[in-house]
């Protein structure tokens, strides 16, 4: 089976690695092959964080350029930075609330306007699901559930290869028990947003 490639990107501290593990374990429990690459260390201090997941038959966890099936961007500008990995066959789910780089004051290159980011994404990929995941997470009960909003949205994308039940089971196995009600709510908000489109 040609692998289903998921590229997840954002900023250190947003819960990107945890989200990726939830997806990967759900794939494994659904008897699919899965490999994943993650970046640790210095980058996590407010820098760009990305993970790559390949579900299906693949030895390497690195996605070839233009070969991402699903891009999950936890931060709008980082969605654009990931565009070389995407193509006109890629679905994108993107959080529209930005995180400014710490040195943006005095930076020669300004932070792009959010509508411009979304327009460029739309012009280059198959479909874009843009949502304010920060707001949805706060509504669910805690801003740190932002990653589960994104996960919920991702699993509602039409060709996502793993079933919702398997993803929810994996979520429960990987998050602290007392946080599950809020995270489940956050997940459903993301899921509802994408499936209602």
């Amino acid at each position: 089976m040609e692998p289903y490639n998921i590229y997840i990107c954002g900023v250190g501290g947003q819960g990107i690695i945890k989200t990726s593990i939830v997806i990967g374990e759900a794939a494994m429990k659904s008897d699919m092959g899965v490999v994943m690459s993650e970046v640790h260390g210095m980058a996590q201090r407010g820098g760009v964080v990305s993970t790559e997941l390949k579900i299906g038959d693949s030895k390497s966890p690195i996605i070839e350029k233009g070969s991402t099936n699903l891009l999950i961007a936890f931060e709008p500008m980082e969605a654009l930075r990931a565009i070389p990995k995407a193509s006109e066959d890629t679905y994108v789910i993107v959080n529209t609330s930005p995180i400014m780089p710490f040195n943006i004051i005095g930076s020669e290159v300004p932070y792009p306007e959010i509508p411009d980011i979304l327009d460029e994404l739309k012009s280059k990929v198959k479909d874009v699901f843009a949502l304010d995941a920060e707001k949805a997470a706060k509504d669910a009960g805690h801003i740190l559930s932002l990653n589960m909003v994104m996960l919920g949205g991702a699993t509602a994308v039409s060709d996502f290869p793993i079933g919702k039940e398997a993803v929810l089971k994996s979520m429960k196995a990987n998050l602290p028990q007392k946080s599950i009600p809020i995270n489940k709510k956050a997940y459903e908000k993301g899921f509802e947003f994408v499936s209602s489109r």
Partner: protein
Amino acid sequence: MNITKVLTGKEGEKLFLLGNEAAVRGTVEAGVSVASTYPGTPSSEIGDVLSKLAKDAGMYFEFSTNEKVALEVSAAAAASGLRSFTFMKHVGLNVAADSFMSVVYEGVNGGMIILSADDPSIFSSQNEQDNRHYARIAGIPTVEPSNPQEIKDMMKYGYELSEEFQIPVLMRTTTRVSHMRGVVELEKPNANKKTGYFKKDPKRFVPVPANAREMHRILVEKMEKIEDVASNSPFNRIFNKESKIGVITSGSAFNYAIDVIEKNDLAVNILKIGFSYPFPEKLVYDFIKDLDHVIVIEEVDPIMEKDILAVIGKYGLKTKVHGKLDETLPMIFEYTPDIVLEGMRKVIGINLKEKQSYEPDIPLPVRAPTLCSGCPHRAAYYTVKKAVEELGLDAVYPNDIGCYTLGIESPYEMADYLLAMGSSVGTSCGFSKSTDQSIVSFIGDSTFFHAGIPPLINAVHNKDKFVLVILDNRTTAMTGGQPHPGLPVDGMGEMAPEISIEKIVEAIGVKFLEVINPVSVDISKEIFKKALQFDGVAVVISKYPCMLTKKGVTSQLLMNVDPEKCDKCMNCLKELTCPSIYVAEDGSVNIDSMFCRGCSVCMQICPKKAIGAKRIS
């Protein structure tokens, strides 16, 4: 998955493990008794997991003061008949190299694996040295796993090999293998020996010249025998497609090569080298002798490529070799499937499938990593900078390895010279002798214990003049918050004697020593000024906990900006670049209460006194 599964997982169970977690499972299945490390990316998670599980596994584990000590702890355990495991990042092996060379001469009784995690493309290091060279300098059998399952399996294989030939084994991983996650099928754990016994044998264990000469002869004989084992190892596998073109590859590069070959349905033979040193010459000869072309796909240096050229020269073969030396593939940095595809295209010259892709049209600002909200390093850098400015000095800032290396960034720009762990202090000695500039060097607490003490002795003894700021944030922060000898806890979570940095500095004979709370800006600045004017070695210990540790929640304050008083001078944003301070869409300056840790430095430096503090109940 709960991490305890790495220990309690049953035979046949499948876990989705990070390469580093799989290494820990390897120690459990191989019955390792002693493990030791100094934390370093990309190997750090091995220690993090061991520190949680070692006690329940009945294993001894420690975070040693540095990699050389870690290797010595494990060497002695192996000499005593126990299976031991020491692991480190690639440059850590430089620190350990002195004893590393000797342990290979002397050999072991219990099995010993030394894991070196290399960092191609330099994600989190100062270089991308290829530690397969160390295999050749030391003469040590070397295995190179390609994925988490292989890390675990090669650990078991490595211990058996190590005991059969009484020689330590080097496992070379790279970032993309250590930080790769994959499905790992478990085998059954094996009980470890609780106690060893050291049987004296000076001819084996004391390399005075007469003994060392004999040891070297024995080592060379061992390695000749092990070459046969490598040529027949199950980790050196041929995927034969009856082609005249072949690929020889190892580690992460194997994953890219096989994916490119399978995806494009190419008729190319593959030799996957997992047991890479001694170089399996006989196997390689058999693989290439009838080929027209062989493409060598390896990260980082052209090591196998040169070994293959040697085989071709030795046997007078006509096979053409492609790789780094003929620019088929890049000489530096890690590979990707796209890079491998491009290299194969050059040799095979056929149409390979390639997806089109775009670059972003809008220019994007860089997002560099930065010091966290409330990080005490930020306060220390700000204050030293002000002290230097107010005294009108021309200062050089030797820096060291840790989170605080981020002091290189604007607006601090206080990392001027850096070589390696502990070099801030040693190079300050050199600057002190070579220039009349003021010298302020920075070193972290863990790095001070690791390699900062001998050069400080050197500085005092040789009458140098500089200010050493020891940034004591009570943890090894950069690698994820491991303990070090300055804390009352050890690697297995037990109470442990706390070694006082102050007492060490005093005992060395430093005549100017102050301990500051860096978030008290004015007091700290005056102390730095005095230190800068001191004629000799001045040490300032800047003590305040890392914000990422639980103990970091020290402040009960929450900062806020009074919009009436703020004239938007942006002083706080420009001078501190604290991630909590931001400009809202209406242009007003705000502090994000979600991320502010209440260090109050911004309040102390605001020229308009527009920043206030609220006590959190």
